[in-house]
């Protein structure tokens, strides 16, 4: 009896692996015979997923070239609207006026959060929502008021084109002011570098980007991480979108389909986001 059971399991596992192999191969198969250039720009949070997906595609089919630029969500939307790129990524949902002005079609392929972060060496690791707003507004100026060192708080923020900024401003700061004295940073990656290098800094970054070089701030007793984003405890949540002008077609459509396929979703998970499928 035991021998048969073992054989059954072996056959089952083998079948599973073969099927899985066929499945993952087939997602890239759609790119066979394609040629051309795909231009992507926009949200910086999306870039790690874009890089990995395009790497896989370009290795599979060297006739395709995919160029990726950053710039922020605003850039992605404007550039795809103006026809300068094929896919414009955004970390916030395009507004109604943007959709109607450019005829945008929105594809959501991951869920992410935006969290306030501080340097790993900072003793202050949790704040109330009100304190967070005051820090960014420039009302609280020194870490010692919060139990930290006697040093000025260095606020870091993103430029106006950033979707990450828009979401953080709306949901975490309740549309409060952000001090003009803040240092302006141009991307999620740059924000992470800046905070990890500045022991007295505070900024905000995509939850998917957080690793051991920066520390997420616990706000109102909720720690921002993938679980709290998934179960809704952490409120500052946003989707990762890819926008196209009109319905996607050709190479563009195949790329977006790939993002939404199990292989693409797996990449999103790998890079720290929550899949939609």
């Amino acid at each position, binding site marked *: 009896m035991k021998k048969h059971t073992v054989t059954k399991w072996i056959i089952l596992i083998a079948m599973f692996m073969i099927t899985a192999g066929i499945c993952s191969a087939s997602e890239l198969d759609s790119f066979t015979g394609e040629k051309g250039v795909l231009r992507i720009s926009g949200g910086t949070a999306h870039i790690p997923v874009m890089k990995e997906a395009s790497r896989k595609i370009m290795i599979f089919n060297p006739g395709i070239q995919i160029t990726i630029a950053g710039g922020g969500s605003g850039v992605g939307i404007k550039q795809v609207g103006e026809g300068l790129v094929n896919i414009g990524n955004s970390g916030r949902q395009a507004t109604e006026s943007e959709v109607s002005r450019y005829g945008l079609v929105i594809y959501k392929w991951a869920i992410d959060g935006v969290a306030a972060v501080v340097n790993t060496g900072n003793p202050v690791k949790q704040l109330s929502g009100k304190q967070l707003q005051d820090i960014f507004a420039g009302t609280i100026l020194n870490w010692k008021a919060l139990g930290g060192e006697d040093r000025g708080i260095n606020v870091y923020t993103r*430029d106006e084109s950033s979707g990450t900024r828009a979401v953080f401003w709306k949901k975490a700061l309740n549309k409060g002011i952000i001090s003009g004295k803040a240092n302006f940073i141009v991307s999620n990656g740059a924000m992470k570098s800046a905070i990890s290098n500045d022991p007295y800094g505070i900024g905000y970054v995509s939850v998917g980007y957080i690793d051991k070089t920066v520390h997420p701030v616990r706000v109102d007793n909720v720690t921002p991480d993938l679980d709290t984003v998934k179960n809704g405890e952490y409120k500052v949540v946003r989707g990762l979108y890819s926008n196209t002008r009109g319905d996607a077609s050709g190479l563009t459509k195949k790329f977006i389909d790939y993002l939404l396929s199990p292989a693409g979703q797996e990449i999103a998970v790998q890079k720290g986001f929550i899949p939609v499928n």
Partner: protein
Amino acid sequence: MQHREHIAGIIFWGATVLSAGVTLAVLVFMVILSLPIIKNDMILEVLMGPWSPDYGLFGILPMIVGTLCIALLSLVFSFPVSLGCSIFIEIIRPGKPGRFLKKFVRLMTAVPTVIYGFVGVFLLVPHVRGFVSHGSGMCILSASLMLGLVISPTMILFFSQSFARVPKTYLNAVDALGGTQFQKFIYLLFPQAWPGILTGIILAFGRAMGDTLIALMISGNSVMLPTSPLDSARTLTAHIAMIIAADFGSIEFKTIFLCGGILYLLTSFGILLARFSAGKQN
């Protein structure tokens, strides 16, 4: 034969006009693309006001002040050092050490500015932050220190050239009268070379105003009007680089052409001034 000569002449002439045309075209484009601001009577508001797009304020005054502050401070750091180095090259040690320093300075001009910015971020900024009681290290001071290094070769080479141009007969005259090196410098070399020195200063200032990368990477880019060298500030050049990403139609975007126009006018004015002062030494 004649025909070929004539055609060649026209080709050369055409090439020159085309090249000169580029100079003009840059200015024209800047002006035309900033026109919407001028037409809407927003020009004063944009030139004099603060920058806060969330509230509809598109003033570039903080950036103009940022540019001027960083350029001026870098000049303050760089001028004495450049003067000292050129004195070293031409007066104190005109032999081998002088020539070596001159070659070294020439080599400095080959170093890309992005390298200065890169090292600035990882070496200078943390030290400034540790040294000073507040701030992130990304401020006018850090940017000016690095920028001072970038513009030094320009000034040193200009100053050296100006000192070298002073006629040997004058120098010999001072020696014959028993003057010391110091007296030679104060009473002869410096006054004689002054127009060239001034030219060098003006050109270096123009160079400092026009630099993008160092300001973008080290000065912090905040939009507030800076009140101290330890404040984070944004320059016109960094502003252009940051805003280029934004919307085409908006007023926000149009302001960068105004920034470009202002930079063009400032540096051109500097060139004219430098030309004028250089003419004086000859």
